[in-house]
């Protein structure tokens, strides 16, 4: 290659190499200004503890309540040993299977809340925000307590690896069943019936 052309190519490559570098700088600035999750901080209390497993005691937690209007200025302190069966589910508003499960959850709530089952939904904050989560609650008419887990602290404490995930908790606060992914009404209802009879 002639020296002049070689020099031109070298300069061109240098300028081209600046483009991805500039994109990276822009990306880092964007991440700093608007983090993809509400909070990127790692959990301090839960990460050092092993996640809850079936047969073990369900972990208590305190999170902000959220409804169709957004985050409420009120916290829910979840105490699994309150003497009632609990259906604890973990969702993300953008999760297709969680949306598909919403009518099933509503039906379960209608059927079992009167029989002493407590329903609590933990809505994750990964790649979403309280406004979008509130819209999800509004659109699907969730009428039971929903809490917002911005840092996924409770997700990690319960070893949730994907949404939706369901935990069925006994009256004495033990995790009886963990179900991952979309479930049928019958599966969840059957599990609740077993726990109610215990």
């Amino acid at each position, binding site marked *: 290659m002639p020296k002049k052309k*070689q020099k031109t*190519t*070298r300069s061109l*490559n*240098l300028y*081209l*190499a*600046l*483009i*991805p*570098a500039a*994109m*990276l700088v822009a*990306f880092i600035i*964007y*991440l700093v200004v608007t983090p*993809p*999750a509400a909070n*990127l*901080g*790692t959990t301090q209390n839960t990460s050092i503890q092993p996640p809850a497993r079936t047969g073990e005691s369900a972990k208590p937690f305190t999170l902000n309540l959220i409804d169709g209007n957004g985050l409420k200025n009120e916290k829910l302190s979840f105490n699994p040993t309150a003497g009632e069966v609990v259906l604890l589910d973990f969702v*993300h508003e*953008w*999760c*297709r*299977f969680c949306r598909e499960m919403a009518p099933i959850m509503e039906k379960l709530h209608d059927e079992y809340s009167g029989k002493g089952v407590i329903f609590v939904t933990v809505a*994750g904050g*990964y*790649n*979403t925000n309280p406004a979008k989560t509130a819209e999800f609650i509004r659109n699907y008419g969730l009428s039971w307590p929903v809490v917002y887990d911005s840092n*996924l602290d409770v*997700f*990690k404490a319960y*070893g*949730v*690896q*994907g*949404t939706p995930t369901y935990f069925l908790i006994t009256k004495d606060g033990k995790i009886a069943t963990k179900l991952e*992914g979309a479930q049928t009404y019958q599966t969840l209802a059957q599990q609740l019936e077993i726990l109610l009879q215990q």
Partner: protein
Amino acid sequence: MKLFYAAAAASTAGMVLSIYLTLLPPPQFCEISSFLSCETVLSSPYAYFLGLPTAAYGVVWFAVASSGVLLAADRKAVAKFMTIWSFFGVAAVAVLVYVEFFLIGSLCILCTVAHVLVFAVIAFYFYAKSRT
């Protein structure tokens, strides 16, 4: 020189994909089954590493590789760096695939595309180097 540009193009594509995976929720076409599910992988605890989305590290790798392959064509020091950088890329992909298969139990197709792009960048780069 065309092969270096091909490596840079593959790397830029990987960077754009990684930016997408960092900032936006996975698209619906990514949900094929309970095993082939981007949501399962990207909503798992492994989707974060040291407080940052794992895909953000992909952005960094691809951005550096994009610049690196262009500069490595006629700069020996950068070429050496690119060899080390390629090793990091392959090692990271190996770890991520292990996590997907054995720890999460689901495969994210878009993440797999990014993994394939890592190998494409490295293949184009080393093939280009072998011809210069």
